[in-house]
């Protein structure tokens, strides 16, 4: 079996199992801890709407913090939107998803995807530089932060190398790209990348708790 | 619109493979003017969509000079409407195209008489009138 067949077959398959099992493991492990019951008289109804509200509103920065967080926020937007476009709007990726979802959606022209991918890599590098230089980030960062960065940027870089090639063979680069995604999927549920699904839980929880109080969310 | 119709009514650039060749020709012409260096572009190694090669040939047009060579099949050598840009087409004995080139030069090398042939020709000429 060549590398590409290994990457597309068993590697991806095992990664998918671990990705699914790990993600559910993490969510269930959190959700089934004891529940905090709040007997206080609510000022406003919290509930699901409050959760949804904050899930949406926290995507934007409150005005008092805009100036201080502008730089990292901008980078994070570029990184996240870039990643979103690259992962979900690149046609070969859509075909990949269609392979097991059974449906597809329109994608963006590859040229635009390459551009967004490069932007996402650039933003990621800028964020890493910030993490390596800011005293706050230097202090609070741990292995997870750096490794998660690595496994996120690796598929971006290997993916962008496919059209550029740089002397490598297409199927080899493609195999390395898929293997880098495999690495990402293996790490995803266990490290901080889990924020991709935890964000709904944390924002939602805060929304429900604070909206109930009528407090600022 | 079908691909077939495309061929009949080529809209430039329909697959985008012609433009880069024109650029290369332009650079080659500059080189010819500046350093007298000739360039040969082998069209066999370049990707063409349906009708693109025909379009390129038509677009370059026919200039003042054209020649026909009979050696191992026919070859046609003609200057395009753009002086210095030559279109060469080699065919084999079955009249199948075996090579297409754009030569950017003052005179394609193949038009010149070759020493070996000149010497042989001279000998034949002498023999004939001996």
């Amino acid at each position, binding site marked *: 079996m*060549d590398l*590409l*067949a290994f990457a*597309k077959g068993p590697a*991806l*398959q095992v990664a*998918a*199992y671990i990705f*699914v*099992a790990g*993600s*559910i*493991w993490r*969510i*269930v*492990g*959190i*959700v*089934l*801890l*004891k529940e905090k019951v709040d007997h206080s008289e609510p000022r406003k109804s919290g509930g699901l709407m409050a959760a949804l509200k904050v899930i949406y509103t926290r995507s934007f920065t409150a005005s008092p913090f805009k100036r201080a967080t502008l730089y990292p926020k901008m980078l994070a937007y570029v990184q996240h939107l870039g990643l979103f476009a690259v992962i979900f709007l690149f*046609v*070969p990726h859509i*075909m*990949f998803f269609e*392979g*097991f979802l059974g449906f597809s959606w329109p994608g*963006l*022209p*590859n*040229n635009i995807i390459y551009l967004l991918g490069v932007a996402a890599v650039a933003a990621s590098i800028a964020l890493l530089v910030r993490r390596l230089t800011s005293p706050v980030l230097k202090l609070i960062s741990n292995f997870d932060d750096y490794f998660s960065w690595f496994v996120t940027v690796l598929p971006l870089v290997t993916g962008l190398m496919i059209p550029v090639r740089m002397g490598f*063979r*297409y199927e080899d680069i*493609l195999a390395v790209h898929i293997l880098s995604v495999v690495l990402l999927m293996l790490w995803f549920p266990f490290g901080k990348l889990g924020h991709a699904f935890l964000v709904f839980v944390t924002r939602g929880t805060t929304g429900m708790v604070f909206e109930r109080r009528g407090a600022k969310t | *619109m079908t*691909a077939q119709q495309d061929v009949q009514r080529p809209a430039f650039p329909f*697959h*985008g*493979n012609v433009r880069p060749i024109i650029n290369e020709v332009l650079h080659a012409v500059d080189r010819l003017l500046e350093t007298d260096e000739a360039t*040969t572009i*082998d069209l*066999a*190694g370049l*990707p*063409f*969509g*349906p009708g693109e090669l025909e379009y390129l040939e038509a677009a370059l047009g026919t200039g003042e000079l054209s020649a026909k060579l009979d*050696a*191992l099949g026919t070859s046609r050598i003609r200057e395009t409407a753009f002086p210095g840009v030559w279109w060469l087409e080699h065919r084999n*004995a*079955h009249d*199948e*195209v*075996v*090579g297409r*080139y754009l030569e950017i030069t003052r005179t394609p090398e*193949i038009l010149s008489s*070759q020493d*070996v*042939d000149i010497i042989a020709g001279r000998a034949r000429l002498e023999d004939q009138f001996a």
Partner: protein
Amino acid sequence: MKKRPTVGEILQAKGVSRRGFLKYCATTASILALPPSMIPRIAEAIENTRRPSVIWLSFQECTGCTESLTRSASPTVEGLIFDAISLDYHHTLQAAAGDQAEAARHAAMEENEGGYLVLVDGSIPLGNPGFSTIAGMSNVEMLKETVAGAAAVVAIGSCAAFGGIPGADPNPTGAVSVMDLVTDKPVINVPGCPPIPMVMTAVLTHFLTFGTIPDLDKHGRPMTFFGTTIHDRCYRRPFYEQGKFAETFDDEGAKAGWCLYKLGCKGPTTYNACATTKWNSGTSFPIEAGHPCLGCSEPNFWDGGGFYEPLSTGRFDSGTKLAGAAAAGVALGVAAAAAGRSKQAKFTKEG
């Protein structure tokens, strides 16, 4: 060894002018995909290289490769046989038959000991020698015997190069490729189902022009023809970049000649010269005819996934096993939460 004439001598003998010779060299350069600046080197080589003897062995094959070879326009197969090489043994093309044919093979081997080329099409069965024999000799024996005195071996077609259809799962005859058996001689793979005629003749031309083995890629294929992917040289590539794809074989995109990636085109992972050399004397190639590339010149292309399955499709069984993984995740999550809660209970009791 009998001294064979050089190609230059043959052309001269036929009264071809120097100008014709230059044309011949130019087209040769074109065939070999060498830059026109290489023409003088080619001219020099052609004037000095002698016509080699070629033995063509056919094993588990369909003769498609030979059929393809006979469509070569430059050089034509006749031109090749009469001018450039001495084809001393080929089941389909030779006039001799039976013992005569085998005698010709032996004669060629003896006369050109150490200098002849062996061309092979078809894969070699290792399961039972009786699966494929010639003149009562098993394929593997004949290959070994013939290759022993050869200068190099050219595996023509995907069967000879990689096992091909006979070697596809479940491989009932135990078919293997030439490379699998010949390890002490240079093996040039010219895969394809069939290979492009011009590529086959070009590989021979290279050998007889330079007398050397061309640069090969990791699958033993000449880099000149198998150095770039179909995708890289495809005239529909701009559509790929623009995100214009045919979704079905009869939609507007297909009619407009858009990229066939979504229909399963294997162009990006297929190394071959189809996109530029094309077929039928440069008329067209599968993608130009509206069909995705199948990747026929790649190893294991029969077992490498569906022809119409997009390249980026992952190859894993979905559904039940994934649901199993999800269930395992739930179980682990429940266990983790239970462990956490019991720890809390214990700590609460301990105060």
